[in-house]
């Protein structure tokens, strides 16, 4: 049958080619495709009901000086197997990893080291550094890595709770306490949400006048993203806040809005950007987060931070934010006042 069809097709083709000449296909000039951010598939847990059931207050340490080997079940366990710290790893001045050496550096890495020194006061500081294992925490997923009842009930089955503490510019919010069963330490950093955009926006818009109608990127599951929406901006959530800088550089968003310390890190990496502070009036405080039940660990962390309040933290601020920094360690909010 194919032979017969072929004969017919041949005749048709001959007839058609005799009277019609197809034009040459037009030369395409497509636009450049945009890269795609990691998708937000495993949705963040639903916001906790208002008002807050848990507490954002922290526990007073037993002493401000660490003299002996700390006690408690969690600390003993950590001493046996090493300290697992969740860090952002992509936030310039807070924590970033040198990929060739594997070394993590930044204010938060220094704080993690001080905490590790308190857990192993009997060891040489060089050995203590080897006891820390840093785990990268994409902004959205930071809190699901804590070993809490709330996280075990969460639907994301692939997520294995593995870190002892999170030192990743985590703002103290009640929602995080209620949703993830987190407990916060003494705050180690005061931040204010700012806006970062290109240095010179062609006069099309003035970032000081607000972000209404503008595409603004921020980390998914953060308080920053809600504030963008509240101010009329089109919030673009990113799994990791640093993806926002890629988005800005690729002209996929018009601005990034997150904590000023992170924006400073972005500006370090791309001098073609400018920071516009004062996006919001609220001040956020960042603290170390641990699982609710690990009170012994929290006491050690608070003891370390209270000790650092007496000068060491200021030195670290100058080391990471410049000599002229005016940052001061925020006051602690202890249970029972």
């Amino acid at each position, binding site marked *: *049958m*194919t*032979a*017969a069809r*072929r*004969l017919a097709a041949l005749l048709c083709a001959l007839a058609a080619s005799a009277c019609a000449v197809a034009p040459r*296909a*037009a*030369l*395409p*000039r*497509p*636009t*450049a*495709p*945009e*890269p*795609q*951010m*990691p*998708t937000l598939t495993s949705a963040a847990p639903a916001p906790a009901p208002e008002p807050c059931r848990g507490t954002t207050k922290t526990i007073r340490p037993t002493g401000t000086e660490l003299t002996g080997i700390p006690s408690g079940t969690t600390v003993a366990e950590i001493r046996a*197997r*090493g300290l697992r710290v969740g860090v952002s*790893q*992509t*936030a*310039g001045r807070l924590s*970033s*990893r*040198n*990929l*060739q*050496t*594997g*070394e993590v550096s930044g204010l938060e890495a220094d704080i993690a080291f001080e905490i590790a020194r308190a857990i192993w006061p009997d060891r040489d500081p060089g050995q203590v550094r080897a006891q820390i*294992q*840093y*785990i*990268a925490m*994409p902004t959205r*997923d930071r809190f*699901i*890595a804590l070993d809490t009842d709330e996280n075990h009930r969460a639907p994301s089955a*692939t*997520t*294995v*709770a*593995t*870190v002892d503490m999170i030192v990743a510019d985590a703002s103290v919010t009640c929602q995080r306490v209620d949703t993830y069963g987190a407990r916060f330490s003494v705050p180690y950093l005061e931040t204010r949400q700012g806006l970062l955009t290109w240095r010179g926006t062609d006069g099309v818009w003035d970032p000081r006048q607000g972000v209404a109608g503008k595409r603004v990127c921020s980390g998914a599951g953060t308080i920053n993203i809600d504030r963008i929406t509240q101010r009329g901006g089109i919030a673009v959530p990113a799994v*990791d806040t*640093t*993806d926002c*800088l*890629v988005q800005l550089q690729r002209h*996929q968003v018009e601005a990034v809005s997150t904590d000023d310390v992170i924006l400073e*890190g*972005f500006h*370090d*990496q*791309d001098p073609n950007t400018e920071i516009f502070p004062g996006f919001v009036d609220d001040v956020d405080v960042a603290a170390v987060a641990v699982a609710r039940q690990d009170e012994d660990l929290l006491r050690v962390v608070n003891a370390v931070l209270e000790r650092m309040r007496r000068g060491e933290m200021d030195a670290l601020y100058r080391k990471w934010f410049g000599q002229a920094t005016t940052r001061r360690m925020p006051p602690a909010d202890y249970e029972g006042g």
Partner: protein
Amino acid sequence: MSSWRSAVAAHFRRTEGKLTLVVVGVLVCAVVAGLTGALSAHDRADLLDDMAYRRGGLNTAAGEVYRALADADATAFSVVLVTGERVAVQRQAFRDDVVAATAALDYAAKVVPEVTPVTRLNQLTSQGFRGQLATAALTPSEALAVLSSLLPIYTGMVESGWVYTSRVDPVGTSYLNEASLMVRGTMLEIAKRLRDAEPPSGVNDFPWFATTVGLLVLAVLLWCQRFLARRTRRRFNAGMVAATALTAVAFGWLLIASTVAAAHATASAQRSARLLEPLTEVRAEARGLDGDEARALIFPLIGDTVTLTAKLDAIDNKLNQVRGGDLDAGTARTLEGAARTVTDWRRSIERDFSPDRPGYGEIAADITAHEELKETLDAVIAQAGADVDGSILDARTAVSGTGAGVVVLMALAALAGVAGLWPRIAEYR
């Protein structure tokens, strides 16, 4: 008018006239049989040409794009883990792979001349469509156009990632992650689905139409001889016997050639499906795992060990499936070696990502060093690819010349028939 008609009718009532009709019949039969046989052979040759050159070319190019992108993805990460001159060497390897992918896309474009309209291309690569792009039904020309437009964006992101990471700027990790997401989530999937090893429909079919026509022509020739034997009282007419024999030879040839070609084409498709495709995927997935290990070291996430082990399990299963098939001794031995490499790999993942793991530098060296699986599989894949192409060429060779042969044989059959009948007609003049 009526006298002319009755004269013609009278002529054909005589034996002389009837023999003239037989000659015409033999000639018509020869023309129909020759044309049918030639078209049937030509049809199959066309399908095999399509398989060997168009699809074959496209499949080869798709395989190369798939390989090159998988290698590029693995190298993009391992570049940041090596030091010294190896950085330059690895970066060059990445660029070689990108250029290889570009060359393969260019090669594929030679066999797929259709141009995708710009509106369609922009729609396919738009941000809104990106989630569905990897699974969307694309024509080969659309797939090639999409890959061609994503490739420079991908390359730019990787190069940006390297520059930032070498300055210890953390945004470099984001660039590398997003680039990897693009190549794995979209580009590799499109390249994988661009392969189409299914033989074109009809290439394996039995030539029913040509066979039927051949049998009918033989029947007509045999009937003519019976008629001749009765009228001329000679048992055989040498010319007609020769014409019948030549027709039988022509269609016998066509039948055998078609059957042999179909067998080769089927063998090619089966070899492709059982060996070439799964091993190409195993190789790419192994390269993906290389990249995952590097990523797990530079950007350790929760649940990494579980993810890495699951991916190795998938590779192991696919490899074992291929090994369970019908293999020649050499291939079986090589794949046994590949399976041993997978076992070693499992051990090194367990060691490198356990709580008491070695130092960062040691793991980095371990991750960037092992490429045994790639090298083992490359040899088998190259052989399987050559075998697949070889079978298609064998199929094409089987039918080459068949069309012309059938035409010549049928022309000879017509001559023989006329030569055999002409003296009988002359006897009545």
